[in-house]
């Protein structure tokens, strides 16, 4: 595959070195020295120039490129790069952005800005924070097709309204599909007759609204109140992290020094306790029993402050400290000084992009139950085996362990029923047993 990476910062270099062994990688950067250094340190072709201009992109052979990754430090440049690429070719474009608003605008319009896949650094980092906070997921949520579709995994409590009901009866929510039931270590593929028992973990796929309604319905008494999460600093990452915890059923506390910002995020986060204070104020920390927190996440604007807060929290007796470290070289050092986990947003971004490029046509992947099963988003192409048939017929062609969870057609959600016909260009969210994954991806 011929890959063009625009912007040789930390993200760009990391992506380039990851992709270089098995792909033809061309890197474009505006800094002469970086280009010179890259020529000798990586097995890539480095070109000096402005990636937003079509001449530079042509020089890099954009017409023959399969994939263009725009990962400069400027959101606007990245979006413009993807737009420029689309004027010359229809190579797949990936843009890295920092601001969530851009991601939201893009999600609202499929393929907007000429961007085929957008990675939001802050959101990604927030998701990572949640993932590595190591807390058991009361509910596991992933979004697909630009937020249109959600998939979630819930543990069913004894008093849940759908406990001890067969799936046929439980399936009363609009545009929601039951994909699988996990019982102990077994995966039960859903049939109408299967009975949902307390303690089961149920995977559902549906529209964002329907999943939220379903979640509120069945998890009324299931809040994980017992876990104390403290986030210091309502930076974009801090705010997104708080939201991520909220989404998974937690009630985090968020400490922000600036009054206006604190007010702003408090309005956005109904389940979060926002505290307006300086996080290095020992008296305040004692009063709020921060020392009893299970985890303290520092997401202030500077690496040094994050280190300070983490060390302070450590001293107070906090179990686990997580800090956002922008400078990659600090990360390891800070971990030896006493931070449990240092998260570098750039590293996360490059990993996500590399992961994405490795998953073929599959547009998004969520892993369930430690990779027992996956939920994937795929665009149906003309040569796909399931085109032009009713789902109930095409299911026969697919192996067992596959459920079509949702379909998006031109940005509109179509709830899949047995009689729904899949058309080329549809984005399909599919639940797949890991064992038959390759076979299914091949077929679709």
């Amino acid at each position, binding site marked *: 595959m*011929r890959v063009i990476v625009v912007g040789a910062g930390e993200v760009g270099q990391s992506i380039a070195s990851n992709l270089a062994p098995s792909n*033809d990688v061309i890197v474009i950067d505006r800094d002469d020295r970086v280009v010179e250094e890259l*020529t*000798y*340190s990586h097995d890539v*072709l480095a070109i000096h120039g402005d990636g937003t201009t079509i001449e530079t992109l042509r020089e890099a052979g954009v017409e023959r490129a399969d994939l263009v990754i725009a990962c400069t430090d400027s959101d606007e440049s990245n979006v413009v790069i993807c737009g420029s690429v689309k004027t010359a070719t229809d190579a797949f474009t990936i843009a890295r952005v920092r601001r969530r608003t851009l991601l939201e605008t893009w999600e609202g319009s499929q393929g907007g800005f000429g961007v085929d896949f957008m990675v939001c650094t802050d959101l990604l980092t927030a998701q990572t924070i949640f993932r590595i906070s190591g807390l058991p997921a009361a509910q596991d949520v992933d979004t697909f097709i630009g937020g249109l579709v959600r998939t979630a995994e819930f543990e069913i409590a004894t008093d849940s309204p759908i406990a001890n009901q067969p799936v046929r009866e439980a399936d009363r929510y609009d545009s929601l599909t039951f994909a699988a039931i996990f019982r102990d270590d077994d995966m039960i593929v859903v049939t109408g007759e299967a009975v949902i028992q307390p303690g089961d973990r149920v995977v559902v796929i549906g529209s964002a609204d329907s999943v939220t309604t379903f979640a509120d319905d069945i998890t009324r008494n299931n809040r994980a109140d017992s876990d104390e999460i403290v986030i210091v600093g309502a930076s974009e990452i801090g705010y997104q992290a708080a939201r991520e915890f909220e989404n998974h059923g937690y009630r985090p506390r968020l400490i922000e020094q600036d009054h206006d910002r604190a007010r702003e995020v408090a309005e956005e986060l109904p389940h979060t306790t926002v505290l307006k204070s300086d996080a290095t104020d020992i008296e305040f920390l004692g009063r709020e029993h921060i020392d009893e927190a299970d985890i303290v996440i520092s997401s202030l604007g500077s690496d040094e402050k994050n280190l300070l807060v983490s060390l302070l929290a450590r001293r107070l007796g906090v179990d686990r400290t997580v800090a956002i470290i922008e400078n990659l070289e600090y990360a390891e050092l800070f971990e030896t000084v006493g931070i449990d986990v240092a998260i570098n947003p750039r590293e996360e971004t490059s990993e996500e992009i590399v992961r994405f490029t490795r998953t073929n046509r599959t547009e998004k992947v969520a892993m369930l139950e430690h990779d027992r099963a996956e939920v994937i988003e795929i665009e149906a192409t003309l040569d796909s085996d399931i085109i032009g048939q009713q789902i109930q017929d095409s299911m026969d062609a697919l192996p067992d362990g596959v459920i079509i969870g949702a379909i998006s057609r031109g940005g509109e959600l179509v709830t899949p029923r047995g009689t729904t016909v899949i058309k080329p260009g549809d984005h399909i969210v599919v639940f797949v047993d890991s064992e038959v994954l390759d076979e299914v991806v091949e077929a679709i």
Partner: protein
Amino acid sequence: MRHYFRVDWRAGLSLVGTLLTFLSLAFVVPIVVALGYGGEDLWVFVVSMVLTAGFGISLRRFDPNPTPGAREAFFVVAFTWLFAAVFGAVPYILTGNGTIAHPVNALFESMSGFTTTGATVMGDISFDTHSRAIMMWRQLTQWLGGMGIIVLAVAILSQMAVGGAQLMKAEVPGPGISKLTPHIAETARVLWIAYIGFTVLLIALLYTLHLAGLAPNMGLYNAFAHGFTTLPTGGFSPEARSIEAFSPIVQWLIIPFMFIAGVNFVLWWYVISGDPWAILRDNEFRFYFGAVTVFSLVGTVLLFFDATLQTTETGQIGGNIERSARYAAFQIASLTNSTGYANMDFDAWGNPAKALLLFVMFLGGSAGSTGGGIKILRWLVIIKSLRREIFTTIHPEAVRPVRMNGKTLDEEAIRGIYAFTLLFLILFFSGFLLLAADTSRTADFDPHTLDLLTASIATLGNIGPGFGVVGPMGGYNEFPMSSKLLMILYMWIGRLEIFPVLVLLTAAYWRS
């Protein structure tokens, strides 16, 4: 454990070992030749091959999984070339024939081969003293050294992908390398394909001339032998009188191929892959082509009007337009890009013509070619920046970046080019002084001043022949051993463009 050396010499040596093991395969060629000519000296090459491979494999034990960095690149390149020359000398010593049986002479001949210098200490260049296999090995060392051992290894060995560019930078002539493709291995392959392509073409054409009856003594052996030393700008010939031994048409044919060898092979790749105009747009090529053409014309005029110029082998040259043109064009093409072939004893030329030859010896080939010397690209940058100096003297406020092929050059790169050129000239004069001092010790060997000057530039610039005793029909055998060792060093650092070897001699390289 406290490390005395800050250079990961274990990893470096291990990689050198890998390269040597790989290089030992080259002995297959003389083995085949030996088999073809009745098995003479066959055992010599088998033993050499085993020794080289054995040494290479034992070096690899220093670090089974080497990860050399940028600093180790100098070490790897410098020692690969040194060891290549050392093991390339083994067959000369083992056969024990002629002057090159002496270890220092053998190393001189081998280093001269790999560095494509073409300076020889062989007393009797004929098949009476040396077997055909030995002579072919001598030619082959030049062919291997021409495009570069490291470039070949990068092209073939997959483990060289990471860091390969760094190594190639230290080996390929010129201030840097240009990647043609994202993967360095592919770029290396492209260069070697172009190189092999031209070599095969020349061999085929030479042999065709022979079959057509136009070149009686250019048999298959000679066609291969000269194909192997033209494209690398080498200059060795199994004929004692070099290219003079062949018919005029062969001499005319070799001229364009010597020229080709002095052009950046990246440009040839563009030509082969369907963009023939790329080469005409290139500033360096135009300058090189212009220089060779103008100097050839000037040389032709000088020879033509030198009424007394004649030798027993060539006949009357002065007044004969074909001969004047042939001898001038051949020698200019040969000495500009450091090939070192001779189609006559140019020592017989008049002073103006000889001065012209001495002048072009300082030009060198293009960057990215197989030629040695200072290189056309550097001179072009120096001329352009000097022109800027003059312009800014008149207009002190003018801001004028130096452009090459339409792209502006970094001031630091220009500084590097000045530094290299100055260092090259300093080494040239130091070499001249040292050779003069050293040769004065011996009573029965008294070379002229000009001979010593050309000996210094001919070894440092990887050219080969000079004037007088080191002239095209002479050799370096009469020099004392100490002078030969100095010249071995000069050929070595000249081929690797000084810095990769010179940094190894500094304490700073090894310590911090």
